[in-house]
Structures are given as C-alpha cells and as structure tokens.
C-alpha cells in the first residue's frame, strides 16, 4: 500500500507540467490532467493557506485534508474545538474556495490548449510543426521574376537561410540552458517563472527593449499583482540572448551581400525543456531580433497567486500575507504601438507583418462592407456592421487607375521594367565604365541592345542637358543611341539612388521606342511604373514604417504630382472647377511633403549625393542597367536567376524579338520587316488556327469573411433559451429557470411545489451541458468554414495558374517547327 502510494506520488511529481525535461505531447498533457485530478494542487494549497480568512489560519495540510470530512476534522477542527456542524461548514467553504481556484487555472490551461493548437501552424519561425509561411516564401521565390519587387505594391520580404547556430555559440547556449534550468529549479512545483520568461520573449528581445527600455534586476521579482510575471523581465536571460546574438551575427557572412529587405532565417535551437531559441538577421538592424518560444505552447502564464518573493510597489493592496488576492482588476497591460510600426510585437515578425492584421489591403474592388469609403446608411448594413468585427481594411482608392499593359509601337513589351538580369552590359565587347561626367566612350548602344545609358552629375554634361537641384532628368535617346541621365549633384531633398531608379525606368521606356508624353493619359502611363519602382525601393528600405503611406499611395500621389500640369489627376480625372482643383492641389502638396519627409529619413543609409550614388551603385540600380540589352538577340548571352518568372521573361522577349524582327505574314521579305509585299497584306486576317488562346486566370480579389463573434454568442444564447422553451433573455442563465412554469401547475402540497421549482435547474442542466459541449464543436466548424471559404477563393486562381503553366510547358514540348511557310489565311 505504502509502495503504491509513494509510487503514485512519484509519478504525479514526475509528470508535473513543464518539468525539467521536455516530454512528448500526450504524456505532458496527461501529466497535467493527473496533476489537476489530485486536488487540491500545491499552488492552490499554499495560496489558500495564506489567503483564506480563518482564526487561527489554516495550514496547507488543512487545505489538503478538505477533500475528506474525517481527515479535515482531525486536521483542522480538533485543534479549533469546533462542533461537527461548524466543522462541516468550514470544510465546505474551504472546498468551495479550492474548487474555484482550480477551475480558473484549469480553464486557463484549456483556453491555452485551444489557442496554442491553432497558432502552432501559423508562425513565423520554421520551428513550428507546420511551417506554412516559409513554404509560401520559397514558392514565391521559385515563381517570381527578379524584377517583380519593382512593380508589386507590397514590400517583398525576401528570405535567405542561415547556418545553424549550435556550432557558432556553443558555450553561450550552454549558459542559457543553465539559466533556464535555474528558473525551474527554484521551485519545481511552480514553473510559472520559466513559463512566463519564455512567453515574455516570444516577440523578440530587441523589440521588447525598444518598447520598454533596458532590464532592471528588480523586475525579476514581479510587482506583486496577478499579472506580475507577464510584466517581469529576467536580466540574466536577456544578457544570454544578447551574447548569443552578437556571437552568431558576427560570424555570419553572406555571398552575395545581404540587400535591404532581406531577412535571414536561422534554424532554431531547442533546449531540453522544449524551449526554442529563434533568430532573424538582416542588413537593417531594426529587422533583426532574437527570442524564445515554446515548442509546444500548452502552459499559459496563469494569474499569479504568490507574492512572497515579489517586490510590490507602494500602494499595492492585493499582496496580503504573501498571497495575491483576487477581486480587484489589475491595471491593463500597455497597448502595443500602432500596427505596422517596427517593433509592434506581432507585426515586427517578418511573415506576420504581411498579414491582414498588420497592414491595410489594397485591392481594385473592395467588398462593400470593407470599403474604406463606404457611406451606406442602410439599416441592414449598420446592423450587420454592429455585430461584425472587421479584421481587414481594404482600400480601393489607391487602385483607381488600374493597370495598363506595357506596349510599344510594335506590340507588347514583355518585362519592360527590367531588373531581372545579372550580366553587365558591354560596348564593343568591352566593359562599360560610367563616370560621374558625361563619358565620350559611351557613344554607341550596348552590345545586343537598342541603347546605352550615360549617367552624370548635374553640371558635368552638356550645357543644354542639365537638371534642376532636386530633380533628375532623362533625356531622349540621341543619334548614337545613348540616353543621358542627369542626377542632381547633392542636397538633402532627394536620395540619389531612388531618383536614379526612377530615371532608369524611363530610360528603359525610351530604349524601347517610347517617346515623351504630351497629354495626361500618356503621362500617367509613363510615370506610374517609374514612381512604383521608386516607392517600392523607399518602402523596402523601411522609410515608410511608422507612417500610413503605402507603396501604391506613394506612387499615385507622386504621379499626380508629375502629371497635374496637364490639367488633371491620374487617380481622379479632371476637376470640375477651379475650387475643386485648388482643394486637390492642397491635399496633393500635403501628401507629397509627407512622402519626401519619409524618404529623407534614409534608414538604409543610401548615398544622398550623385557622386556617391554612382561610385557605389545600388544593386537594384545595376540590375535595371543590366536589363537594357535585349535578351534574345542571336549570339548574345543573357544571365539570370533560374526562376519561372525570369524564364518567362526570357521566352517572352524571344517571342517579341521574333515578332518584331521577322516577317510574320507569308510572302517575300521586303525592305523592312512586316512591310507590305502586296497591297492586300494590311488586310490579311489573323489565322485563328494557329495556336490556342490561353486564358490567364484573373487576379483574385482579396476578400476576408466578416468575423462576428458577438452574433455567434447571441445565437448560442438563443439556442440555449429555445431549448428550454424560452425567448432570448439576458443573461441567458435566466433561461434555466422559469418560475411561472411551475407556479402554473397546481400541486397538491407546497412541498411538491418547492421540489418542482428546485428540480427545474437539474432537469435543464443536462441539455445545457450538451449545448455547451456542442458549442465548441460548432465554433470550430464555423472557424473552419471561414478559412475554407477564404482559401477556396484565393487558392482557385493559383490552382488555375499552375494548371495553365503545366499545360504551357507540356505544349512547348510538342511544338514542331515547320519547314515551310504557313499558308495564308483567306478568311474562310
């Protein structure tokens, strides 16, 4: 018997939650359940011994004995000389207090299990059991062309993998392990410090230091309130994390060098308690961080009950006799900084920052109930909005102008923006040395290309090809095929690299035959891609963080700024009158100033002066210059990263060159390509039998379902009341009991009446319990339905795209190049 008792106690102690070594999932949960079964738990016993008001005070053993009447009598009542009735009364009060405390803690753990399970699969770190977001990134990386970042309206998060840091910081990791063990060993029955410490650094150490300042050793003790460990800091752990970061970061080298906006993911490290150490590295120090998280986040930070080792602040009224009393609401935790700022906890993590909680979505068509400019006053919509928590913010104003397919006189201009090639251009097979002055050596187009660019600083070119102080200018292609680009010499108003990016987009346009614009429509079409690239670069370097400026907004404002001289706005059309025009101009000036102020921050530390920008040219600028030569001219090499997008760019440019340089209508070759050999050539109809049309799936509208928890809760309450044959009452617990139902029935005696009234609750308890149990399953179905609806919608377009890509590549293999000219299509 003794043996069994001791072995059971040993098993119970060994299976305490978050014990020294990490156990498998099921074993851990089972251990917690068994530990909770052995009521009362140690934490509660210790707390109630301090907090329960009795004279003399009850001891932990007295609390433990409250389970069994005889044990309690001998433990607590005999010394107090209480009679049987008083003793039983006291025991019931103690037992009720024990059950209340245990119920709160069990509920906390259950809620954590539910939330933890859901969050396991949606995390930023590859340490999670399902690493969905890193997979998204790798798929995007394989599909994307290298110039996609120039034209997409979001900041691309480019990822790289780093080495495991177990080999880079062995001794530091051992020290961290030791300090984490010490947090647990202080009191193995109360792992709350270890639990809290791990949760505290889940969003990263540096973000926490930015928000709350450096660590003070006094913070380790807690402030003696229920939430003390949610706000505590552990300086030894923070020092260990700092040292590990410095050691690992100092050892990392990257080839090619890290660019701005690139995040390096390092494989996480796992301690023997199942705590994971993660780390991100980046060129931008604001995007680097190191932190901890639970491998299996099952134990929450429960309200603290013990303040024996805490340092309560003055005026603390809840820490009484070393126990923390309930019944008073502690001050709420501080609000995180506004969403979208660097260091704003969840939104500081690289993947989460892309989510809809952290940034507003831009879409061409916004669903009605999510439109930012919704002015509907219909009662049904306002009713719906009342019960809806909208987690998304959709902005359609920024997308009013829509996209135009880039084309030149001879047809579509595939991948016109450039930036997808890595091989530098040559002139007469010699490398091009572009100095800060106008270079006489650059006097011919690049090999295999239509043009060359010659970038120079203001004042170093031809007298008639200068530029103002704050603006760069791209001049049309000259007779030698050279496009001069003048950059302002210096100054704070503009960052030279961003200006250069903008002008190179124009150079690309002029290179393909576009000419200067003379009306609003052409101005908008020409300037929009250039400003999009410029704003993308500004955003990627972190200059828009902390503001409400998005890339699309920036591009629209600046294109309006450039084109308003043609009498209208690209995003709004022509103003109705001069008053409206004045109003638009004022708003434009205000927004433009905001954008320039943001870009002047120059967080990436880019060169501001022309000379510096040219001597240490940014990789993004260089990639656009590299893409100026044609990709598919015979005997010309092209080099690019092997992605689907880049390959598609190459194939498209090859087809484009073929169509532009070869005769596509059967007949003898004339002096110029596609010239009329016969008078009726111009009227030749397209042959519908050549090739098949491939419908490109449209971009899906981003649409998130409305989340209506208040409505769902009201529906559940209604179901509860309906089950009991009652209308919806508040609070719903009133539906459990209906006095009139019993009073309406005539009973023989008052006794039966009384029994009938009290039995009502018992009768309904079973159905209420059933509904409560069902509620969880129903809630899960509703959540799964929301997710399924969203994924079916957005996944459909991607599925179709993969199907089409599969079809295309399959058909490539079946192409048979004809040995004869195709016959003319005569229209029948």
């Amino acid at each position, binding site marked *: 018997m003794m043996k069994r008792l001791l072995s059971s106690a040993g098993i119970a102690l060994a299976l305490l939650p978050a014990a020294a070594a990490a156990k498998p999932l099921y074993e851990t949960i089972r251990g917690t359940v068994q530990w909770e*079964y052995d009521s009362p738990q140690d934490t509660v016993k210790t707390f109630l011994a301090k907090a329960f008001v009795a004279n003399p005070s009850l001891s932990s053993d007295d609390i433990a004995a409250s389970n069994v009447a005889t044990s309690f009598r001998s433990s607590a009542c005999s010394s107090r000389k209480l009679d049987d009735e008083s003793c039983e009364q006291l025991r019931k009060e103690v037992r009720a207090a024990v059950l209340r405390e245990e119920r709160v803690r069990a509920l906390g753990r259950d809620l954590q299990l539910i939330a933890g399970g859901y969050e396991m*699969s949606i995390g930023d770190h590859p*340490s999670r*059991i399902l690493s*969905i977001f890193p997979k998204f990134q790798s798929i995007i990386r394989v599909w994307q062309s290298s110039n996609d970042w120039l034209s997409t309206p979001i900041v691309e998060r480019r990822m790289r993998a780093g080495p495991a840091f177990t080999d880079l910081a062995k001794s530091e990791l051992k020290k961290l392990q030791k300090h984490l063990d010490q947090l647990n060993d202080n009191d193995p029955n109360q792992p709350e410090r270890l639990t809290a410490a791990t949760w505290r650094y889940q969003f990263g150490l540096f973000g926490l230091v930015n928000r709350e300042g450096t660590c003070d050793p006094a913070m380790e003790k807690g402030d003696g309130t229920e939430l003390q460990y949610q706000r505590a800091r552990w300086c030894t752990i923070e020092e260990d994390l700092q040292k590990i970061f410095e050691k690992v970061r100092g050892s990392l080298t990257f080839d090619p060098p890290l660019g701005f906006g690139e995040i390096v993911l390092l*494989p996480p490290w796992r301690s023997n308690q199942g705590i994971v150490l993660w780390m991100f590295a980046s060129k931008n120090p604001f995007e680097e961080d190191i932190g901890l998280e639970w491998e299996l986040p099952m134990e929450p930070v429960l309200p603290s009950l013990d303040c024996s080792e805490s340092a309560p602040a003055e005026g603390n009224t809840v820490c009484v006799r070393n126990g923390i009393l309930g019944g008073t609401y502690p001050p709420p935790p501080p609000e995180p900084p506004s969403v979208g700022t660097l260091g704003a906890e969840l939104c500081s993590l690289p993947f989460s920052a892309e989510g809809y909680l952290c940034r507003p979505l831009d879409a061409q068509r916004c669903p009605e109930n999510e439109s930012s400019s919704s002015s509907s006053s219909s009662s049904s919509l306002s009713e719906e909005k009342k019960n809806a928590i909208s987690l998304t913010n959709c902005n359609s104003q920024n997308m009013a102008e829509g996209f135009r397919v880039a084309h030149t006189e001879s047809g579509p201009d595939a991948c016109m923006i450039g930036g997808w090639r890595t091989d530098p251009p040559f002139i007469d097979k010699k490398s091009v040395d572009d100095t800060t002055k106008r270079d006489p050596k650059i006097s011919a187009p690049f090999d295999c290309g239509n043009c060359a660019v010659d970038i120079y600083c203001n004042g170093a070119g031809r007298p008639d090809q200068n530029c103002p102080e704050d603006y760069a200018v791209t001049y049309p292609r000259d007779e030698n095929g050279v496009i001069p680009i003048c950059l302002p010499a210096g100054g704070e108003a503009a960052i030279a690299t961003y200006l250069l990016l903008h002008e190179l987009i124009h150079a690309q346009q002029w290179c393909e035959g576009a000419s200067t614009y003379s009306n609003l429509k052409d101005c908008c079409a020409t300037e929009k891609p250039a400003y999009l690239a410029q704003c993308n670069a500004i955003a990627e370097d972190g200059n828009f963080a902390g503001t409400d400026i998005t890339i699309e907004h920036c591009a629209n404002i600046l294109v309006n700024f450039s084109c308003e001289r043609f009498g209208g706005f690209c995003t709004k059309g022509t103003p109705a009158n001069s008053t409206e025009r004045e109003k638009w101009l004022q708003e434009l000036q205000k927004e433009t100033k905001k954008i320039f102020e943001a870009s002047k921050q120059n967080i990436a530390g880019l060169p501001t002066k022309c000379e510096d920008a040219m001597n240490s040219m940014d990789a993004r600028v260089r990639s656009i210059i590299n893409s100026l030569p044609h990709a598919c001219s015979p005997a010309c090499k092209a080099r690019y990263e092997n992605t689907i997008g880049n390959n598609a760019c190459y194939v498209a440019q090859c*087809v484009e060159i073929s169509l532009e340089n070869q005769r596509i209508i059967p007949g003898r070759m004339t002096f110029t390509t596609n010239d009329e050999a016969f008078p009726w050539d111009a009227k030749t109809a397209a042959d519908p039998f050549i090739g098949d049309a491939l419908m490109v799936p449209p971009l899906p509208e981003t649409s998130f379902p409305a989340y209506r928890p208040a409505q769902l809760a009201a529906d559940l309450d209604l179901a509860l009341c309906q089950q009991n044959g009652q209308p919806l009452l508040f609070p719903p617990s009133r539906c459990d009991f209906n006095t009139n139902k019993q009073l309406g029935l005539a009973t023989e005696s008052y006794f039966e009446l009384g029994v009938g009234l009290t039995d009502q609750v018992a009768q309904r308890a079973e159905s209420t319990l059933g509904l409560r149990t069902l509620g969880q399953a129903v809630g899960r179905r509703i959540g*799964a339905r929301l997710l399924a609806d969203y994924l079916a919608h957005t996944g459909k377009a991607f599925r179709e795209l993969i199907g089409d890509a599969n079809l295309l590549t399959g058909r490539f293999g079946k192409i048979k190049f004809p040995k004869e000219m195709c016959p003319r299509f005569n229209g029948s």
Partner: protein
Amino acid sequence: MIDARFLIGRRPCLRTLSLVIGLTIVGGSAVFAARSASTLPVLAACTRFEGELFEDIDFQPLRDTPKLNTANVLDEWSESYHGTVGKVIEEDLGELVSEDSPLRSPSRSPRCTASNYAGFLAPRSELKSLAKKLPSWKDSTNLSRLNQLDMGTVLLEYLRMYECALVERLNLLPAYILRQEAYRQWVLFGLPIPKVIIEIPILGSMDEDERIRIRKELVTARASLLKTLTFVSGYNRLQPIDMELTCVQRASLDIRNGMALAADAASCLPRIWNAKEVLRDFENE
C-alpha cells in the same frame, strides 16, 4: 508472491461479502454464446466475451508472462493504452530531426499524385496498426477509407474500448481479482485450490485500491485524450494545406525546370523564322 505483511492486522470488510457473491457468479457463469459480427449493433459492444471479433484488442486478462509474479493487469492496460496513444500522436507530429532542434520530419512524404484525399493523407503505420485492432475499423472496406485525418476518430474509439474494459472490470471487480489471483497461483505454484480464498482480506484491499485507480483512470484518460485532440486538431486543420504546399513546391520546381528548357529552346526562335521564306522552304522529306 503475495506479501505476508498484508496478512497481519487486516479485518474482513464488506468487500468480503461481495467476494463471496463474486465467487458464486464466477462459479455459476454460463458460457456466452458466440454471435457473428453481422448480428452486432452498429456501435459494437465492448464486452470481451462477444466472439472472436474482439480477440485482437488490448486489455486482456492476466496472461502467462515472464513477470507473472508481479504483473498487474491495470498497469499493463494503462501502459498499453497510453503507450499506443502516445505513439500515434507522436507519429502524427513527426519525428524530431535531432535533440537540439525543434524541426520535425514527417514520417512519410505526401503522395502528390494521389487521386483523392484518402490517398493523399494515407494513414501512417502506428495509426493503421491500431485501426486494424479495432472491431469497427478492421473491416477491409473501412480500413481502405482510413486516412490520417481520422486519427481522432480512431483514438476515441480506442478510448471507448479502454473505458469499456475498465468499467466491465469495475463492475465485476471481485470476481476478476479472484480469478486472476487464482490463475497466478495456479501457474506459479500449481495450487489446485486457490490459496487466495484464505487471503480474502488481501483481496479486499486489492479491490479497494483498484477501484480508486480505475475511477481515476476513467476520469483522466478521457480528459487527457480530449485535450490532446483539441490541441492536435488545431494545427491539423492546416495539415492538408501544408502538404499541398509541399506538393506545390515540387510542382513549381518542375515547372521552373520546364520553363528553363523552354527558354533554352526559345533562344533559337529569332533564327527559326528566317527559314520561313519562299526562297528558303525546305522540301518535305
């Protein structure tokens, strides 16, 4: 060997009366008529006397093993049940690639060419071997439709079998204890008349201990499994998506390679058109 210390200072209690009744029941028990599977209700009964359908399940009475002298049926059942559940859950989570890394490798790669989800999320080995033991799953039709997402259903069925075994034992506990101790003594010592009849107080104590343990186990086993399934189902809701993304990753790499070959071939396009002129038509070969 029963510890002689338990013989000292024990008083007969009410449990002895139930033991006597149990003896009567054991002595007078009729042989249950075996029924075929087709006559069983849809929710199979969990009694272990209902024919050969339940022969393969765990939770059998005490059997002759090398550790018979110290073997405890409840310990064996508990170890078997929790061990099996633990293995199935861990297999679902995936194996840790190393002790100091939280990364896990799935025990099986997704079958991207499967024609339906049953094939795509084929059950893993531990789950499959558990399902084969359960009467409601061992049917070949049901087994062929089993997929990894049915893990919760299979485990709940296994829990039901376990609870049924425990409840059945609890209801006839004195008889079971008597039978098992008689069996033990017969196998170990060859006693023709169970010596245990003399040691009724010991049986009373064993009965009391087992009742407490069974009651605790009935409460904690279900709670543990439900909480585990709550946690597991949270991340499993995205497991199909995760596996599909793995397949999309692979498909993307294949498409990339295909496009690279197309790009290679496309570099010939500008030249190929040159052949298409009246003066340079090639004759049909």
